Structures are given as structure tokens and as C-alpha cells.
């Protein structure tokens, strides 16, 4: 660990001590270091529903490429409190630019600028990254919605090894040549800042070498003092400085202009991204749902109809980037690299887990029970001004085909065991 990191740790440490002090003073519930758990449950459950998120590979060296990819369903039941996603940007939630972003595609369309997204639409994003700053970093996909702010997806750890000094980010220019974004224009920028700054300090120094304030104020108060203070040397200096400025500006401008004959303004268009839609042979309706506060479980009753030709089994309920699975889900959809801390492998229970047969309609009691509800601060739902929940239910047939339904509904909290 070098001195720089040590110093940073000291600053973070003292901030941490202050935070801890405040936390103890106000007995606030612990907030995640990254803040993702501090977003309100309705914001995380009913806006962007993240699934199939992948961080690959999770270990890289400086300059290596990595990928952050996955899918996102924009909830139909978008909360009233959140501005509609008319201008959105797929972003990366990371502590500073630990990776540079090389490319970002949503449903195959590059997303350099912000664009609209549709409620009920499904979007697949692929973000290519290049490892830049060594360390152990928590990386989230993120949907930034203009007017609503960032909506963080699930976070996974990515490690970068090596040395930042080795990092380069070469880019090919249209008119030929390659440029490194880390250093491009730096020397010229420093030169001009030093040149103008130097002239500025010289100008101030010209007046600092002589009495500045009290003496001049006393002279100015006298008859004829103004004329006396108008030193001919200053007049000359004024003309010289004025001429110098205009000449340097003109030389700088015209030389630069001939140096860069082909320039373009900043590009500010909006990508038009066509959504896809979730495919499922099941139709689902939330009949009733309650939230068992002491039991830390979301219990729902769904009316499910199978319109397809093969029997289907429910295997996963996912909301706010947190996954609740049963045996079916584990067998079909377990990514061994998915962060264990946001996944409950035995978190989904059904009273009757027989498959839903083709043509069958039945009420299913689904129960997702895990301490994650509390740890991920989703139990704070009871403090929201709108008691509704949302999420994705995934089902599989015997040959492993996945069917996804987006569900949403009202939810009633159960505060005591007696009530439940």
C-alpha cells in the first residue's frame, strides 16, 4: 500500500468515525457503504427490474477488458413519485472511473447520449470496460433517469490488479492518428495556464513592488492626488500589457486553428432504442400480498394461467436486484459468479410446488422469506407512501426454457405475529 492510499484511508477513516458517531447518536439503521441500500424500496422494486446481470471476468489486470452486462425490465407499475423514463442513461455505478467505458450498447444500439425508454419494455445492455485503477471495487449497472436520479442495479465485486501508471486508453481519430485520453492536450493546457497565470501575477507584482494601499489612499484624498497617482510608467505598462494580450491571443488562436483544421461540435443526439418484451406462456395476477415484518417475508397469492403447451414450474422471484430462488431456480438459473450476498438460494417457498399444467388456472401461494429483506432494507417498504411492490417471476419448463412475468400489486404489512 502506497502513501497515497494510506492517506486516503486516513481521510475515509476519520469520516467513518464521524459517521459512526452520528449513527450511534441517532440510532439510524446501518447504511451500505455504497448507498445502494439506502434507496427507497419502491424505487428499487418498481422502476428498473434487473436480471441476468454479469460481471465478467471478476478479476482483471490494468488495461484488460471486462464486461458488465445484463437485462432490465422497465416496470409497467412505475411509481407516481418517480419521473417517467423519458430521458435515461445506462450508467456504471463505481467508485470513480475505476474502469473506463469503451462501449455501451442497449438492445444493440450504442448509447453515448441519453434517450427514452418505454414502460413495460425490456432492455439488454452490454458495457465494455477497460480496467484502470487497481483495487477491489463494487460495480453496479445503473439506470439514470432525468428528473428521478440514478437507480442502482445489483452490485458485484470486481478486482483489478497491476499498476495505474501502466494504464493507457488509446483512441483512433477520424482524420488519422491515435490519441491517449489520459494525457491528450495536457501539456498544451498546462502551458497556456502557466503563461497566462504568469502574466497575471506579473501584472499584480508590478503594483505590489510599490506602496499599495494606505499611502495611496491618503494621497488620493488630497487635491491633485489622483493625477499624482497616475504614474506614466503604469500607462506604458497598460499599453504594453494590452498589446501583449491581444497578440498572444491572436497567435494562439490562429496557430491552433491551423493545427486542428477538422473539428466537430459536441454531439448531443438521442438514441432511439426499440424495446423487446418479456416472453411467457403464463399470465399472472396478484390476488393479494402481504409483508410479514417480524418474519421478514413477502407472501403473495397469484392467479396463474398456463396458456402454453408444456407444464411450467416457478423457480425465481427477483426484485430490487435481489434474487429469491427455489430448487427449480437453482437448477435452471444459478450463475455461480452471482454475488452470494444478494441471492437467497432457498428463499422461495410454495405451498404447492406441482407444475402448472397447460390450460390450467390456479391460485399459487408464493412466499419469499429471507433475512435479505431486512439486510437489503426492503422491509422499509412499510414506511413508503405507496404500499405496492413489484418484481419478476421466472418459470421454467422441463427442457429449461425460461418464461418471465412482471408482477405488481398492493401490499399489506403485517406488523405482529398475532395479526399474521
Amino acid at each position, binding site marked *: 500500500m502506497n502513501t497515497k492510499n494510506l492517506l486516503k484511508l486516513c481521510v475515509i477513516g476519520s469520516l467513518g468515525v464521524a459517521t459512526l458517531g452520528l449513527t450511534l447518536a441517532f440510532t439510524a439503521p446501518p447504511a451500505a457503504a455504497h448507498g445502494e441500500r439506502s434507496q427507497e424500496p419502491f424505487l428499487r422494486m418498481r422502476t428498473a427490474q434487473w436480471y441476468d446481470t454479469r460481471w465478467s471476468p471478476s478479476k482483471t489486470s490494468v488495461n484488460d477488458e471486462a464486461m458488465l452486462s445484463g437485462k432490465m425490465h422497465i416496470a409497467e407499475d412505475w411509481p407516481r413519485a418517480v419521473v417517467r423514463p423519458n430521458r435515461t442513461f445506462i450508467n456504471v455505478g463505481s467508485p470513480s472511473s475505476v474502469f473506463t467505458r469503451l462501449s455501451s450498447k442497449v438492445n444493440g444500439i450504442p448509447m453515448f447520449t441519453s434517450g427514452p425508454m418505454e414502460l413495460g419494455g425490456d432492455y439488454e445492455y452490454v458495457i465494455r470496460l477497460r480496467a484502470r485503477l487497481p483495487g477491489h471495487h463494487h460495480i453496479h449497472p445503473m439506470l439514470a433517469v432525468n428528473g428521478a436520479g440514478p437507480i442502482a442495479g445489483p452490485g458485484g465485486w470486481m478486482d483489478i490488479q497491476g499498476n495505474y501508471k501502466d494504464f493507457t486508453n488509446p483512441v483512433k481519430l477520424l482524420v488519422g492518428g491515435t490519441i491517449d485520453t489520459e494525457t491528450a492536450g495536457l501539456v498544451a493546457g498546462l502551458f497556456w495556464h502557466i503563461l497566462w497565470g504568469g502574466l497575471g501575477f506579473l501584472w499584480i507584482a508590478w503594483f505590489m513592488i510599490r*506602496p499599495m494601499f494606505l499611502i495611496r489612499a491618503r494621497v488620493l484624498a488630497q487635491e491633485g492626488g489622483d493625477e499624482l497617482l497616475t504614474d506614466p510608467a503604469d500607462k506604458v505598462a497598460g499599453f504594453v500589457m494590452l498589446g501583449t494580450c491581444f497578440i498572444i491571443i491572436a497567435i494562439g488562436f490562429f496557430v491552433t486553428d491551423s493545427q486542428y483544421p477538422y473539428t466537430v461540435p459536441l454531439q448531443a443526439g438521442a438514441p432511439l432504442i426499440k424495446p423487446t418484451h418479456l416472453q411467457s406462456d403464463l399470465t399472472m395476477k396478484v390476488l393479494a400480498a402481504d409483508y410479514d415484518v417480524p418474519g421478514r417475508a413477502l407472501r403473495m397469492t397469484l392467479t396463474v394461467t398456463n396458456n402454453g403447451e408444456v407444464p411450467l414450474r416457478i423457480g425465481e422471484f427477483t426484485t430490487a436486484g435481489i434474487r429469491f430462488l427455489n430448487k427449480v431456480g437453482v437448477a435452471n438459473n444459478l450463475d455461480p459468479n452471482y454475488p452470494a450476498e444478494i441471492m437467497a438460494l432457498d428463499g422461495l417457498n410454495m405451498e404447492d410446488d406441482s407444475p402448472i399444467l397447460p390450460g390450467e388456472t390456479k391460485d399459487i401461494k408464493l412466499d419469499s422469506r429471507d433475512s435479505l429483506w431486512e439486510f437489503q432494507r426492503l422491509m422499509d417498504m412499510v414506511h413508503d407512501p405507496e404500499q405496492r411492490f413489484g418484481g419478476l417471476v421466472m418459470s421454467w419448463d422441463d427442457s429449461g426454457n425460461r418464461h418471465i412475468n412482471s408482477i405488481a400489486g398492493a401490499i399489506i404489512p403485517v406488523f405482529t405475529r398475532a395479526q399474521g
Partner: protein
Amino acid sequence: MALFRTKEIIAASKLPPEGVKLSRMIDAIYFLPIAYFGVFATFHMHFDLLAGDWDFWIDWKDRQFWVTVTPIVEVMYPGAIMYYFWTFYRQPFGATLSITGLLVGKWITIILAWYWWANFPMNFVMPASMVSSALILDCTLLLTRSWMLTAIFGVWAFAMMFNPSNYPIFAYSKQPLVADGALLSLADYMGFTYVRTGTPEYIRIIEVGSLRTFGGHTVWISAFFSAFISMLMFTIWWQVGHFVGQSFFWATGKRGVKYRTNDVMIVGTDEYAQRHGTPNGIAPGASGRATLAEGKS
């Protein structure tokens, strides 16, 4: 022959040698730690609140808003500071002081906050420099000795010179490149490649083609508009300087009436005693005709 009139000025101040020495100490203590650091700290805060993002990010430096907003915000403090230094001391460095001070603050932020703490490369957060514009403004005041002419010509040049004087710093970032089949400027790409979690692309307030009537001359139209508003801002802030920089005395005259006197330098002098009959305790010993004659220069 001496380069400066310093000797005559010191003589006219009628300060004893110890007084002259002391006044230089006051200059040093007052100018650097108080005036300079006070200006750079407050102006830096003021500027970053009003135009910070345009100045930090390479991908905010557009032809419309950056060119318009920066001179308007950057002429405010110079207006007030120039009033103060010119009116009370005839010192023509108010604008240069404000803007070099701003840049001292900016560079502390760039090195410590952006580069060292947040790990952004320095070229990505390079600020604009308006020192050349400030020098032009100060020289205009020095040469015209009129704040009205300074507001008209100096401020006009202050704003109009912003783009040409910063073009050498930022032109490289306007070079085109193609990424994923889309044409971008290098600045756009840098804004994209350096991940800013809290600053998604739509936060940018930049030209989206709204000045389409003027074709390729957007930057000059913006600069012209900026110059116009800057003139207005300069005069307003000159008056702010006047309001904040008021110095007056409450004095009691011969008949015991309290009144306000705006010329603080006159209080305690013989001229004051002559005008008001008595300095009334303010300038002991300044009551006779003899001292009055001596005090007149």
C-alpha cells in the same frame, strides 16, 4: 530618473518614515492573506456554484452555453473588486486579482479533489483561463480611468476574447472520431469513457442545435450575447462593490447634530476641521488656523 513616482507619492502621503514602513507591512498582511485568499476562496465558491460543471468537464465545453455562461459569471467578482481597488487606491488589478485567485482555487481543486482523490486525469477536468480577459479589463480601466468606458469596451473584449484565448487549450478535444459507428468529438468520448456515476450524460447543458439559424457561427453569436449580458453584470457588480465597499463615519457637528460623512479619509484632517468647525474629539489638536494651512496641500 526613477522608473516610478514612488518618492513623490510617499512624500505627498505625509507619513513619517515609521508610518511608511508600517504601511508596507499593512500592504503585505492585508493583500496576501486577507484580500487575495478571501477573494479566491469566495470567488471560487461563487463560480463553481454558477458555472462549475462547464468549467470542470471537457464534454461540457460547447459553443453555446459554456461560451455564454463563463464570461457572465466570471465578470461578476471583478466588477466589485475593481470598484474597490480602483475607487479607494487607484489600483488597476481587481480583475486580474479575482481571476488569478479563482484559478489558484481551481488548480488546488483539480490536483487534490479531481486528480488525487477522484482519480480523473487532469486534462479531463482542465479549467478555462480568463486571465487574458482580466488583464484586458484591468488595462482598459487603467487607460480610460472610466468605469463606464471599461464596462463598454473592456467587458466587451473580456467576453469576446474568451473563446479565442481558450481555443488553444481545448481545440484538441473537438477532433472527430468514430466509436461504434457514431461520430463523436474526442470530448464526447472522454465524457463517455471516464465513468461519472453521479453525472449521467443528460445532465450536460450543451448546445443541441437550438441556434440553428446562425449556422456555423454559433460560438460568435454566443460570445456576443455573453458580452452584452457581461456588460450588464459588470455594472451591477460595480454597484455591488459600491454598496459593500461603503465607508463612512458618524460624526457629531458643532451644534451636536449627528451626521454621516462619506469621505473617511478627510475625518481627522484639518480640512475636516475647517468645514465643520470642530473635529469634535476625532482629531485632537486640529483646531487652529495654523495647522489648517499646513494641512492643505
